[in-house]
């Protein structure tokens, strides 16, 4: 795990050997998803095997980075004090065009403007020298 710059005090993802290509993709401003070479289904979060057919061979595929808001909430009280500066903020599940769902924040959107099923696109946020977070903004 890398040392975070002192100004970033929120939890920082710790990539595993399995998930590292996902995080490397974000650094390169791409959403990359694992896809099973056997049953051809997309898999997210990254796993060392396909949970649908147990095949251990998966490939990394560049995704469009586009999707829709499956559901969202406005967090008005932070549980972790490091998020207090952001309240109220949007916390959402986004369904990507490839069919998988990811948890993320919606940014560049006022809380009152957020809608379920709203089209969104990827937004990349460098938080450390190594880690870039995937967030979404209205498309």
């Amino acid at each position, binding site marked *: *795990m890398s040392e975070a710059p002192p100004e970033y005090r*929120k*939890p*920082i*993802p*710790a*990539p*595993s050997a399995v*998930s590292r290509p996902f995080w490397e993709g974000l650094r390169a401003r791409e959403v990359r998803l694992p896809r099973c070479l056997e049953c051809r289904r997309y898999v*997210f*979060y990254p796993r060392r095997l396909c949970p649908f057919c147990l095949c251990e061979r998966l490939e990394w595929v560049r995704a469009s980075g586009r999707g829709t808001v*499956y*559901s*969202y*909430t*406005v*967090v*008005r*009280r*932070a*549980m*972790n*004090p490091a*998020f207090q500066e*952001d309240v109220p*903020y949007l*916390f*959402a*599940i986004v369904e990507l065009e490839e069919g998988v*769902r*990811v*948890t*993320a*924040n919606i940014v560049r959107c006022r*809380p009152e403007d957020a809608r*379920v*099923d709203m089209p969104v696109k990827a937004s990349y946020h460098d938080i450390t020298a190594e880690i870039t*977070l995937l*967030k979404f903004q209205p498309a």
Partner: protein
Amino acid sequence: MTLKRSAAITGIGEMRPSRSPDGKSTLGIWTEVAREAILDAGLTTPEIDGLLVAPPITEQAAMWPSILGEYLNIHPGYGNVVDLGGASACGMVWRAAAAIQSGLCRAVLCVTGEASDVETFYAPRAPRARRPVQQLPYREFEVPYGPMGVNSGYALIAMRHMHEHGTTGRQLAKIAVDQRTNACANPDALYYGKQITVDDVLASPLVVDPLHLLEIVRPCTGGAAIVVVAPDLAGAAPRAPVWLLGAAEASRGIMLSQFDTITTSPIAICAPRALEMAGVAHGDIDLISVYDCYTITVLITLEDAGFCPKGKGGPFVEEHDLTYAGDLPLNTHGGQLSFGQPGLAGGMSHVTEAVRQLQGRAGKRQVRDCELAFVNGNGGIMSEQVSLVLGT
């Protein structure tokens, strides 16, 4: 194979919830409610030969059954931690019955409880500095985005349910109001004597949209225990035994992003199985005692358990009086929303209340001619589910 009438609950013990521990420890609370339940069942500690405990949320230790067994001088032939979150209590009931039916034991003590308050419950439990972050998927793919514990998860469910089915804030608020009416008939409830209205709920602060403060359970201190016994012991118990008539369990993962749908829960799988095992229909049920960490939990439980069609939970709770004197008595102790949520003992409160009602000792809030109860335990973010049918 069936668990129908394989075992009965013959004793309950429950501590009155309090806002803070006031010097009590979790282990101390466990022994207090365990003692009460064993005495209520008319048993002595050497007769307890099974021990199930639920792990506290805010404290960690290994081998909880051994710790508690030693303290109480109980030496079980069957011991386990039941780790189903809020569904642990209901999960204990059928596990106890299955162990009894298999001949492993005859009297199982099931214990839940926690010395906790709002501050300790919501205190951030960040991994210690210089230690590797645990490689758990939710730490890597959810926590960096600032979820508010499970609150934000239930908010996502409520928001999507409103979108799919037109459910309104007023409909959800009605659940909190009716349960508060019940709590006002229960002197042990944390919010006894504090009636609220739908407007009060909607005027309380939004915490995680669309959920308001009065729709969110309050962590507190408390505990509850039950004793589950074999049929021959049930016959000799001082009180009328409460029989397990039906049970089923269903679960799915832990992260909402992994579920096919977040507005239908695994209750849709386990509730029909439990009712079928009991051989009863929805109309036969006299008491609904179901997990209510949030208003939306109750609404979805009523739909998925089949008390109303999917998506019609909103109009359904508006059309029915959910109070102890109403046409559809639900969470007559106040539910966890108004009784309090003492860790995983919150889930046990739905079992103990069903036992009280079925034994006719619910006092002012007694439901008339109460013979059959539907009980549901819910863990995680509507992921772990255990449905029970209890009866006289």
